[in-house]
């Protein structure tokens, strides 16, 4: 708080040499004490005012669903009868923790998350770096990055089902021409996870590249200038200038991608085709998001689905806590 008061004090004396427009505003000295009070209030209150819209809207439309699912997770609640709920306490949770399907989904979510998120962010960073060069037709390159994100689910699901078809699919045709046996992409365990991850990578890499690109725009070029004067290669510039400058944005994409991977739902659903919510005959690519959808939407067990959602939240919090601990350790070690 001391910082802000300091501002207020230094700001109150009238500066004649300030920008003309600004000085015009503050010439009215009779009201200056009222103004400075207003000013002090502005500085104290404005942060809250700035974050208020977000919390207001969240309170109006996000809070009720959040509390409702929390309440539902403690009850037996069916989609067919929302007015009739039976108190279960933690039974939904204990049932889930004993359910093979839940642990299977958790494992799948983790493996698919890793094999999709890591390459996705790495490629995105590289692509953003390339896009940051002086390019011919740069608008075109940039907007093309977002094409997968804009492609409708209907098109994407048709294309990928045909690509990964067991019999006559393009991917099997290619690996067949190199002499390998065709893979049953949907019903094999690693094959299906690989296929789902490739859809995720296809869909989100350009998206992340654009986010990185925006951040790169704010890296002052004179850093590159002096680096290249020092004889740094492009790769070194990328490593020693771009990456450190982008750290907050990289952190952002890691957090958002982790959350996204935990909730992964659309891509495996579209890959699964009819009855896609099962995630394969052996649930080999059923993620937590899909399991939740299957429980709540297809089977109508809202209470249990809500418990899945809250467990997902707990898992994310655990990941965050572990991250914090590691970061603190590392800092101490240094």
């Amino acid at each position, binding site marked *: 708080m001391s910082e802000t008061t300091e501002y207020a004090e230094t700001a109150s004396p009238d500066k004649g040499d300030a920008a003309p427009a600004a000085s015009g505003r503050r010439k009215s000295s009779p009201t200056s004490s009222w103004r400075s009070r207003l000013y002090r209030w502005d500085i104290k209150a404005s942060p809250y005012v700035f974050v208020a819209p977000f919390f207001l809207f969240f309170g*109006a439309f996000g809070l009720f669903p959040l509390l409702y699912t929390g309440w539902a997770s403690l009850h037996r609640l069916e989609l067919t009868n929302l007015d009739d709920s039976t108190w279960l306490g933690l039974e939904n949770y204990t049932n889930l923790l004993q359910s093979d399907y839940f642990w299977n989904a958790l494992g799948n979510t983790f493996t698919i998350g890793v094999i999709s998120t890591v390459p996705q962010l790495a490629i995105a960073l590289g692509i953003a770096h390339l896009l940051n060069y002086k390019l011919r037709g740069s608008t075109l390159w940039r*907007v093309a990055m977002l094409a997968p994100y804009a*492609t*409708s689910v209907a098109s994407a699901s048709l294309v990928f089902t045909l690509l990964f078809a067991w019999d006559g699919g393009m991917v099997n045709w290619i690996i067949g021409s190199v002499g390998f046996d065709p893979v049953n992409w949907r019903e094999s365990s690693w094959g299906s996870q690989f296929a789902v991850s490739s859809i995720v990578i296809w869909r989100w890499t350009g998206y992340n590249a654009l986010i990185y690109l925006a951040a790169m725009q704010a890296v002052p070029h004179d850093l590159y200038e002096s680096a290249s004067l020092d004889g740094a290669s492009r790769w070194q510039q990328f490593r020693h200038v771009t990456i450190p400058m982008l750290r907050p944005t990289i952190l952002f994409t890691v957090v958002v991608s982790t959350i996204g991977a935990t909730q992964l739902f659309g891509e495996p659903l579209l890959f699964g085709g009819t009855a896609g919510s099962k995630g394969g005959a052996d649930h080999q690519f059923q993620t937590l998001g899909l399991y939740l959808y299957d429980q709540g939407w297809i089977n109508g067990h809202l209470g249990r689905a809500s418990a899945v959602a809250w467990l*997902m939240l707990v898992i994310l919090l655990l990941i965050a806590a572990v991250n914090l601990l590691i970061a603190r350790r590392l800092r101490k070690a240094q």
Partner: protein
Amino acid sequence: MKSRTSGPTTDLASDPPTDVITSPESAPAPRPKSGRSLGLKAGRTMHAGPWTYIVLALFTAVSLAPLIWTAIAASRTSGRLAQTPPPLWFGGNLFKNLERAWTEASLGDAMLNTTIVAGSITIGTVLFSTIAGFAFAKLKFKFSGLLLLLTIGTMMVPPQLSVVPLYLWIADLQWTNQLQAVILPTFVSAFGVFFMRQYLLQALPSELIEAARMDGASSLRIIWHVVFPAARPAMAVLGLLTFVMAWNDFLWPIIALNQSNPTVQVALNSLGTGYIPDRAVIMAGALLGTLPLLFAFILFGKQIVSGIMQGAVKG
């Protein structure tokens, strides 16, 4: 968000501060003078070699392929789409299918509705995310850390599940089948707030705000003259991502709206009807539904391309 298109004199006047804005706190560069002269090159001093183009072309081809194939499929017949190998070049049915999709799904009204929905959500998200992100990144206030964590925490609620309670809530408000039922619940986004915070942390030097404060600028003026210019590329990216997301969203709109007042994704549902859904027409509808996004790309894309520094001198 209008680009800086005022006359050359104002541009000169605004040159020094924008350069300052772009230099982060850690930047050792002597400014403003050298920063100004180099600012013309906008951080992209390196020219792309042939490999850059090859890699980008490959990446672009993979990105665009499904969209292009959608157009190919839309130009064929449903029967042809069932055959192997699938068609890889355009057929002669494009306009017929487009016309059928347009009339059967009454896409005209739907496009207008979706423009309102996606436009409002984009304005709300970009505006509120920027100011909230700024507050979290650069202002000190009580509970800011806690509030930020809370914001990120709201992202962790899986959207599939909120649908039922949200419908009950919307029903209580008597908003079913009205556009605000799909606009207001996504009018702000935690993603956007967090994104803007991380971006401004890096892109907006704190000295700049201090200086503005010393000049006696009010918070609103700082937002307008310091934060918005510095945040422009990020605002454009956020706007683009939000617009596309809102345009293509279907899970909630299908539940909250019906075809008397539809968005494009809701309207497209009327194409898959009958026991023999016509895949070619469905693809034509998907294509029509995507086309407006290309316009949005061009609109926002320019903003992203002309980053802050370049924008200042371009005029």
